[in-house]
């Protein structure tokens, strides 16, 4: 009896491993090995063009602690996340509720909300480059009707980050709307019927039924948008190259600069390890604290 039980767990385990094997191999090659190698490399100094690297312990990390650009980039990334994540989520939720209601031309409006998602970020960045152009760009053109002077949105440190945030929210809100739309359609309609019979106000209905039951979707969207805030840097390459004076530089773009413009592999690896740690911390917080408070229907 005991033997048979062990035998079957072995079998189950064996099967699971067997089925996991293909993805495990790819994960090892493309994720685990590079992570370990990056951590290893972050302890070395490799001068440009030289093939031998020197072990320098934690010096790369010490350098970063004193590196003004690094702190600027971290600060920017936090503002960028604070600017994009909540706004995208609220906007997406509002858009989803709007197009879920019985309105005319529903599918047309859905399409309009969704289409920025379909366009590649590079193309979007080019479009917005024109929108933000001082003088005759779209926004400045509209501003001039109200007698407001030309604003160089991408050329000054005060506005460049806000300009990027608006663009990214515009791009990703439609994508998140799709998840909310699916979430809304999963909420049983009889709950709303009850609310109607009870005479609950629209706001209370949203507060007590829609919002809590959308929580799993919100968690999912929150994770995606927060990681996006660290992952999406394509637009920087097109629009500002991190300028003026690093005012629009983000962590991942800085890693790119250090790795492929300066060819300082050790420092770039150290930066990557820091980015990895930030991502892990985010994931841990989300899965272990937020997850418990969410009611999956």
């Amino acid at each position, binding site marked *: 009896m005991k033997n048979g039980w062990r035998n079957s767990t072995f079998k189950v385990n*064996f099967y699971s491993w067997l089925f996991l094997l293909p993805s495990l191999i790819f994960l090892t090659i493309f994720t685990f090995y590079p992570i370990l190698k990056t951590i290893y490399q972050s302890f070395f100094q490799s*001068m440009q*063009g030289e093939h031998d690297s020197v072990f320098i312990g934690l010096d790369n990390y010490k350098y970063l602690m004193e590196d003004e650009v690094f702190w600027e980039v971290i600060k920017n990334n936090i503002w960028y996340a604070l600017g994009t994540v909540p706004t995208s989520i609220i906007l997406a939720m509002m858009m989803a509720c709007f197009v879920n209601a019985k309105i005319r031309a529903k599918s047309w409006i859905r399409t309009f909300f969704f289409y920025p998602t379909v366009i590649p970020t590079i193309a979007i960045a080019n479009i917005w480059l024109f929108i933000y152009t001082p003088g005759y760009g779209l926004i400045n053109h509209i501003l001039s009707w109200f*007698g407001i002077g030309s604003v160089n949105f991408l*050329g000054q440190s005060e506005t460049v980050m806000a300009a990027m945030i608006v663009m990214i929210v515009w791009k990703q809100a439609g994508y998140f709307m799709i998840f909310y739309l699916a979430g809304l359609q999963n909420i049983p309609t009889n709950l709303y019927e009850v609310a109607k019979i009870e005479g609950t106000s629209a706001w209370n209905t949203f507060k007590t039924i829609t919002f809590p039951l959308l929580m799993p979707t919100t968690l999912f969207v929150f994770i995606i948008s927060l990681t996006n805030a660290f992952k999406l840097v394509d637009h920087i390459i097109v629009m500002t*190259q991190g*300028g003026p004076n690093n005012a629009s530089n983000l962590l991942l773009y800085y890693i790119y600069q250090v790795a492929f413009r*300066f060819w300082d592999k050790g420092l770039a690896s150290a930066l990557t390890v820091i980015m990895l740690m930030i991502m892990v911390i985010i994931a841990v917080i989300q899965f272990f604290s937020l997850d418990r408070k969410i009611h999956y229907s």
Partner: protein
Amino acid sequence: MKFNFKKNVVLTLTLFLLILAGCTNSTTTKTDDISKGSKKEKIELSFYFPVSVGGPVTKIIDQLAEDFMAENPTIKVNPIYAGSYADTMTRAQTSVQGGNPPDLAVILATELYTLRSMDAIEPLDRFIEDDYINDFYEGFLENSQADGKTWSIPFQRSTPVMYYNKEAFAKAGLNPEKPPKNWDQLLSYAKKLTIKDGSGEVEQWGVEIPSSGFPYWLFQGFALQNGKNLMSDDGKEVYFDTPENVEALQFIVDLSRKYGVMPKNVIDWATVPSDFMKGKTAIMYHTTGNLTNVKNNADFEFGVAYQSANKSYGSPTGGGNLYIFKDIPEEHKKAAWKFIKWLTTPKRAAQWSIDTGYIATRKSAYETKLMKDYVKSFPPAAVARDQLEYASAELSTYNNGRIYQVINDNLQAAIVGDKSPAEALKDAQQEADRILKPYN
């Protein structure tokens, strides 16, 4: 049960192996085909090039490659557009590190030190015949030669020049044939050329000097006009924070912040020519590489002049050279050299200059009938070439990418008003000294 289990295991494993085998098989056969094909028929050259100016440059390069292949049927040139100068450099470096370098590429002449310290490029002396190299302008060879060897061949070379709108000059009561000659004139003309509407909004700026991407280049012009170059000849020292340079940067900042004749904050490199052609600015500083683009698209008369002088005229050279990479087969190197020689024949250099506005890099190109006729019909075509007399090598040091980043960041900080010019240049100097320390 037991039988089933085994069978399933075998099935899964076979399936998995089949998938793996499928992947590997298809890729190997593919590469085999390519290498076999090229060995049998043609030598295939990959050729990276950047585009940094307006106009149909990609088309022109594709056409050049096709013309070359028509004359040389054994060689196939694949021109690959690789983005900006910085992107092209990154792409080439990445390919070199990956053990798969391009055969040849157009890369900034200033990347010489970096490419050499990577051991990525081939010295070209053994290919160069007779006095071929002596026909090139010395100003352009400065960034191409080192340690008594020639490492690259000047190709799309430029200097910044001043473009000015003659109609706007006439309207402002200035002589359209007399562009500003020095900084004082530049400022006083720009004041006259700045036009505001009723509500105080600027309709036409006096001057625009781009400051996105690589602000060091145009700043270097002002530094040279006010004293000496930004770096030592061996690329191991920089001189950013001299009083003369502070004065030069102060002048640029004052144009926008004090006198209001130039837009405030960072001015985008690529939008400046469209501003000029739309009449949004009366004067612009830009590369001569944009000359043909402006000529074809401006619907007003415009002139081209030297950048204004202060103590003297001065200008950095700029632009890209042709490099041949090291770790490629010998027959590829020979073929690449053949293509380079073909590209730089006087007649073709002249045609390239006419098509784009870049300076023809060889003296004899200006002796061709083609070029002589063109200069006669369009005198601005010779301005950049004549300005070479006052030109010095472009900023180029060891660990170039980092030095550029440091000076660019600090110049932008001064331009947007985060730092004073003196502070910005002092910070840049300190940081640059630290970066260059290992080389001294």
